[in-house]
């Protein structure tokens, strides 16, 4: 679907803190929203919709986002927001990192924890992911990530990104080119310690929104209930007819619920839309 709204220009910048130096793109004004970007395909309409309402910072993470140290990232996110309270969004692999940021020991990262106003996890695979098949080509992975791959005009772009991910994830000591499925799985599925992460969900202190596509093939059906039950102030939103990469398939629906949650947090459950047809 073509975006009929005026395009949003994101300004690139470089940010360094906590021993890390990362690229960032910035646009919009208003409440600060930091997006951890692990997958930079199919996200533009979602980012643009948010940037029309909020001050958005898209933090580009290295290929294996799950491997980035949560402590260093949280210093960067806090700096981006200028010390103000902010909302943190992570999708798929970056969602797992966002969750780990929210679970930092308050005694060690009290200031960062206090600034986190809302946590939004889009298609998190931190707990109860569907086991990945033994071997998949990048094309097969692309099909696994989307409910309707045939509707994507730039599916080749996703395949290329997955191919590049596989090429760049060589261990160095071996041949350097990992099997496609193993590389993609490490990206989209949680790092070691997933069981420990699940056991700590009750320690998340900020309002949390978990958004899952109703046709997500990477997340088990029971995951939604687990997040809702174990995270104290958590709401689960099912985005109908979307796969794992919700932003690529239903960007308007995703931005609508995410924006509402950023603005209103747990009170997003109250309908504010007017339904009067004629006065």
């Amino acid at each position, binding site marked *: 679907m073509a975006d009929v709204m005026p395009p949003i220009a994101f300004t690139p910048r470089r940010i360094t803190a906590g021993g890390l130096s990362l690229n960032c793109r910035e646009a919009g004004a208003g409440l600060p929203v930091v997006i951890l970007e692990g997958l930079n395909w199919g996200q533009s309409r979602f980012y643009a919709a948010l940037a029309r309402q909020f001050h958005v910072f898209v933090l580009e993470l290295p290929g294996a986002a799950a491997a980035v140290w949560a402590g260093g990232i949280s210093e960067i996110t806090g700096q981006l927001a200028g010390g103000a309270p902010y909302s943190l969004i992570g999708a798929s692999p970056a969602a797992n990192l966002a969750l780990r940021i929210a679970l930092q020991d308050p005694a060690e990262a009290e200031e960062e924890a206090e600034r986190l106003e809302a946590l939004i996890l889009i298609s998190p695979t931190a707990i109860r992911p569907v086991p990945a098949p033994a071997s998949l080509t990048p094309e097969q992975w692309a099909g696994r990530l989307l409910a309707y791959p045939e509707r994507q005009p730039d599916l080749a772009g996703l395949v290329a990104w997955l191919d590049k991910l596989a090429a760049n994830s060589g261990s160095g000591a071996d041949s350097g080119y990992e099997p496609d499925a193993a590389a993609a799985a490490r990206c989209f599925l949680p790092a070691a310690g997933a069981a420990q992460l699940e056991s700590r969900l009750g320690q998340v202190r900020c309002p949390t929104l978990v958004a899952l596509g*109703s046709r997500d093939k990477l997340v088990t059906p029971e995951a*939604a*209930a687990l997040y*809702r039950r174990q995270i104290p102030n958590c*709401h*689960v939103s099912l985005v*109908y007819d979307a796969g794992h990469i919700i932003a690529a398939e239903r960007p308007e*629906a995703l931005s609508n619920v995410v924006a509402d949650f950023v603005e209103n947090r747990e009170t997003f*459950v109250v*309908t504010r839309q007017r339904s009067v047809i004629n006065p």
Partner: protein
Amino acid sequence: MKASYLGAMGYAERHLFPDVWPIPPAYHDPQLSVQSYQDGLTECEFAEAMGFEWISFSEHHYSGRIATGNPAVMAAAVAERCKKVKLAMLGPLLPLNNPVRIAEEMGMLDNISAGRLIMGFLRGTPNEDQVYGVNPAEGRERLFEGMDLILKALTEPQPFSWEGRYYQFRTVSVWPRPVQQPLPPAIMATRSDDTVKYAADNGLGLGVSFVPVEQMERITDKYFTWCRQAGWEPQPDQVVYRGSIYVAETDRAARAWLSGLEGGAPRRAIALEPNVSRVVQAARAGEEFDLRRVLAGSPQGDVVGRSLGINFLGSPDTIANQMKAFHDRCGVGVMDLFFQQPGLTHQEVMGEIELFGKEVLPRIKEF
């Protein structure tokens, strides 16, 4: 093969209705209406006593011919009178209704009936699109999204919000849960290729109404093929045919009844203004097309613009043979039967239920 009695609750003087839809409420007499519902409930009780294994309910609005605008209300009333039969909701019209509300009704019915519910999902006949102001062009998509939401609402153990194309709910937490776990049996009532395939792909039973056996065979051939491709095989109870019936002691008596009707055939059940009908059908199909040329099983959608007459007419032997054809050729396991033909009194309908129960039912149970 099982028999199902369609609890139509027809208004006693429906034969006096004008040949239009909607029926003006001016035709409604309160005392007659009260008696009509009581008669309908009595017919359901009698059908259960005669061996019918399902009582079914459909949603039709603004008419006393099938006076169940809210089938859940009717099913709840019957649940207290009939304690053995399955209660088949064939069924709520998803494009018209709040899917979360439907899910709640299904949960309640399954609890009230102690686990006797059979769920049904329907798009509805074209006239129903006018009832609650739904755009006919959106009906199919609302049906698919409604089904997904209902199934999720009845199975998700924690509250959730739903961001759909046609439905947005920020809090869904349906109570009570169905007694039958994980879900009561579900039937997709349709003739269109895409919805038949949806049923096959999603493990749903199939319900088809009022078509000749040849057309039924074409539809079920596709259904069974798609089910095999999806990796499963339907059970007999998952293939339901709804038909109109008139059974008499002899074939001659049945034909005499038919020829005695004005015009020699049952009157049209739903008669829309012609231009309205054309607009609705065009909107449903997303194109201009002629209602009369739409065939059952086509991708253009459900078409019930004209009564298709009596599907089963004759003596008990004749009817049993007619039903055997549906069983042998189409795999039909449940016959859902509409007995309340226009002009028949309550006593006449009771007589037919008895005749069918004694002479036909024992035979079809052997199929």
